[in-house]
């Protein structure tokens, strides 16, 4: 292992350390938090030989660039982005070597997705709160990147001839951020739908647009809603990530990983786990449509996604092994 410095030369609107979130802290009032697009974050780590939940860099909007002072193994995932290394185009969703002194530059198109994840083989030197490096703005834990970040890495470059076939051909489950048309989000109905007759049909038939008032607590959507007839008070309670909440105003809110207890609004459904990564990429202006699915279908999609990531883990372990590494490059 050696210490590598990354000079951060450009950051986006919000550029932070990130991971998959806190464990076992919701019972103590601290939301799990973590990457809004968990799939892209996990895949970025797998592509560089890290454990899925290793700390990486999340970039929301704008550009991200850095120059390492030693060769590093990097992967960029999330929203479709233009990636260059030393000015030459490079692929996202793939392991990349950034040579010492060269700049890697990531420029995303906000119209295609909100967040990029940049994983680097190794362990970032980052502060933790309750065992996680994920920021928590409410608790004053911002995790903004400084001008230089440090990393402990065992990466020493690959033994690879220029004349050999491409280094990797990996089964990468790329998150589909379609350019045109609405994104389709699967939703499982919950009890609140029963208290509002017709809301299920209305949501299935309508289209919703993400507004600029959205943040890490929730996506606020413009579109038709219905309210319950009764004004029975709903006592504050916990809600899952992805809950579709109808506040008093005429809007729909999809709660994110930093949600807290509800203020007592009806929850008509909960987005399927397999749909959450896409919601993490939905920026202002994005059109969404909802499709009701039963719980079994929802879990099956989640299982498919998990199988894909596992297949990638096996393939990267093999590829890295063939290049002279025994399995994963680091062991937590």
């Amino acid at each position, binding site marked *: 292992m050696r210490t590598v410095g990354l000079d951060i030369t450009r950051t986006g609107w919000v550029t932070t350390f990130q991971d998959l979130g806190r*464990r*076992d*802290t*919701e*019972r*103590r*009032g*601290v939301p*799990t938090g973590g990457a809004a697009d968990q799939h892209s974050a996990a895949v970025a780590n797998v592509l560089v030989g890290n454990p899925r939940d290793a700390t990486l860099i999340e970039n929301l909007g704008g550009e991200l660039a850095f120059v390492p002072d030693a060769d590093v193994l990097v992967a960029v995932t999330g929203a479709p982005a233009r990636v260059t290394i030393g000015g030459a185009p490079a692929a996202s969703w793939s392991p990349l070597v950034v040579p010492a002194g060269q700049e890697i530059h990531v420029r995303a198109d906000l119209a295609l997705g909100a967040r990029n994840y940049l994983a680097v083989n190794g362990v970032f030197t980052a502060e933790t*709160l*309750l065992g996680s490096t994920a920021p*928590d703005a*409410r*608790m*004053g*834990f911002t995790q903004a990147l400084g001008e230089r970040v440090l990393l402990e890495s065992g990466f020493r470059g690959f033994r690879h001839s220029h004349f050999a076939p491409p280094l990797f051909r990996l089964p990468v489950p790329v998150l589909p951020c379609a350019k045109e048309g609405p994104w389709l989000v699967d939703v*499982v109905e*919950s*009890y609140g739908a029963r208290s509002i007759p017709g809301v299920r049909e209305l949501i299935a038939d309508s289209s919703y647009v993400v507004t600029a008032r959205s943040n890490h607590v929730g996506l606020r959507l413009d579109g038709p809603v219905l309210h319950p007839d009764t004004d029975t008070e709903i*006592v*504050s*309670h*916990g*809600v*899952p990530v*992805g*809950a579709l909440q109808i506040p008093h105003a005429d809007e729909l809110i999809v709660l994110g990983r930093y949600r*807290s*207890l509800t203020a007592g609004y009806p*929850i008509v*459904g*909960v*987005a*399927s*786990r397999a749909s959450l990564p896409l919601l993490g990429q939905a920026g202002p202006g994005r059109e969404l449509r909802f499709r009701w699915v039963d*719980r079994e279908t*929802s*879990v099956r999609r*989640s*299982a498919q996604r*998990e199988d894909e990531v596992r297949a990638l883990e096996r393939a990267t372990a093999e590829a890295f092994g063939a290049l002279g590494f025994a399995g994963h490059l680091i062991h937590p």
Partner: protein
Amino acid sequence: MTTEQFTAVTVEPFGDSAVMVTVPHPEQAIRRTAIVAFRERFLAHRPPGVLDVVSGLESLLVEFDPLQTTLPHVEYAVRLLAERPPVHEPLRARTALRFAVPVVFDEETGPDLASVAEELGVAPTEVVEAIAESTFTIALLGAAMAPMMDGLRVPRPVRRRAEPRTDVAPGAIMIAGTNAIIQPFPGPTGWRVVGRTPYTIVDISRPEPVSFGTGDVVRFVPVTRDEAAALGADFLLPVAEVPV
């Protein structure tokens, strides 16, 4: 706390990876104490695949990994734990911690004191007395680990503000209904702000950012501005352990 209070629980599926547990009972107080007792028991006997729980005032959200367990399994475990007291459950040997929180109650630290007094038909000093004479129990840790407490003894429940405040200082003591809460970080609130403690309630630089937990007992001790200044922003620590 008796165990038969929650022999029947309601388990409501919530999305593809959570259920919400409630204890149906006409009396609010029983619904609330029963769900706290159930939570303790559930966490002590956490079924495989359960990731975390989120406490509401009268509910417990149980979050699980649907690839490690299934909804019927979780539901079954919940009902089993509710109906059959586990054999190894300790005989309520848990000790709660007791906290004495110094609070400055004046017009500046408690901008809602006057309106609460008016609403209750008493003088502002009597509101302060009522708060100081109440013994609070921490029901749950709310947003950013804020201790949400039950036990405010007032003639009738205190209403929330019609117009929420947008920026309340850390350490603010706030009340609503028969609950009290301490604001750990600057932020918005719809609760009525009645005082402020100089102490640091949540310190994120510590491995354990708070010293309190569900079931702990809190009293508010009125202090003057000078006394508060002398105390400083020390991290809130318990004064004693009390058997429950």
